[in-house]
């Protein structure tokens, strides 16, 4: 029985008892001092919790939220670009390797003395002989 009244008291706090339940609870509180004590304790606890309820976060909360939204948007943009370009990286690497090998082959047939870097990147030789050759 007391369990029912406890449940009724919890519902009385939120104001959802119908008139018949309300009357029954009131009568029970009038005749049972222990139950009445419980009800007072419950009201005290409710008041204490309401009074101690947090009202805000740390200062400048709204400004910090909007700042973080901006940061998140920038990060999302970067991630989006990464997502788009990541698959292209391996394709670009294959093409670059192909061009390098091609340069190497062609250079080898033109100038046997070209260094590896000059050959791979198809850079004009910078030796004195090459410079004289370019002058002529």
């Amino acid at each position, binding site marked *: 029985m007391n369990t029912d009244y406890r449940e009724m008291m919890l519902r009385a706090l*939120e104001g959802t008892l119908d008139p018949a339940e309300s009357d029954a609870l009131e009568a029970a509180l009038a005749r049972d001092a222990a139950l009445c004590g419980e009800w007072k304790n*419950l009201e005290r606890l409710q008041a204490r919790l*309401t009074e*101690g*309820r947090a009202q805000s*976060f*740390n200062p400048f909360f709204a400004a910090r*939220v909007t700042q973080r939204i901006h940061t998140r948007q920038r990060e999302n943009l970067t991630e989006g670009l990464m997502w788009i370009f990541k698959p292209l990286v391996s394709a670009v690497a294959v093409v670059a390797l192909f061009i390098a090998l091609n340069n190497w082959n062609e250079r080898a047939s033109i100038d046997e003395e070209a260094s590896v870097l000059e050959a791979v990147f198809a850079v004009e030789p910078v030796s004195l002989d090459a410079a004289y050759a370019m002058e002529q």
Partner: protein
Amino acid sequence: MNMTEQQATDRLWIARAKEGDERAFRELVEHYESQIAATVVGMLGRGDEADDVGQETFIRFYESLEKFRGEAAVGTYLTRIAINLSLNAIERRKRMRWRFWSRDDEDNAPVEPGFDGRDARATLENGEEVHAALQELKPDFRAVVVLRMLEGYSTKETAELLDIAEGTVLSRLSRGVKQLQGIFKNEVDAT
């Protein structure tokens, strides 16, 4: 401002925020900060973690603005996000503590950080006392107590927010209340 006026204002703020009006979204944040602070600080206690979860609540809302149809009140929608993020944060805390806990000490399983004892309690303000006492409740009970007694949601609304039966809300509330009364009683006895 009554409920209908508030809903109309919310709709206006949301429409403007969707069009990229940052000030409108800020107005929303400022308006609902206290409600979300009550939920998150009630669940996690004061500190950087609560502040972080509070920010994340509004960011999630901002990111879902396009999907928000207004079926639920903004406050309820935000509270649902806040309570879920808070429960996730509690779960994360628990995992972190277990990770750093020596296997030899399994009998002394870590509990959530709450009050260290009565001496510490005596120096706290009522708000801090309330939040520290709430930290001693199990997260499931705490969520019910916070929503019902701090936020003022009805049993039905609390059940919907937490996706549990109304009977479960009442039984968790009853046990949570009993535990809180015990904590505060000890505190009175100690002074």
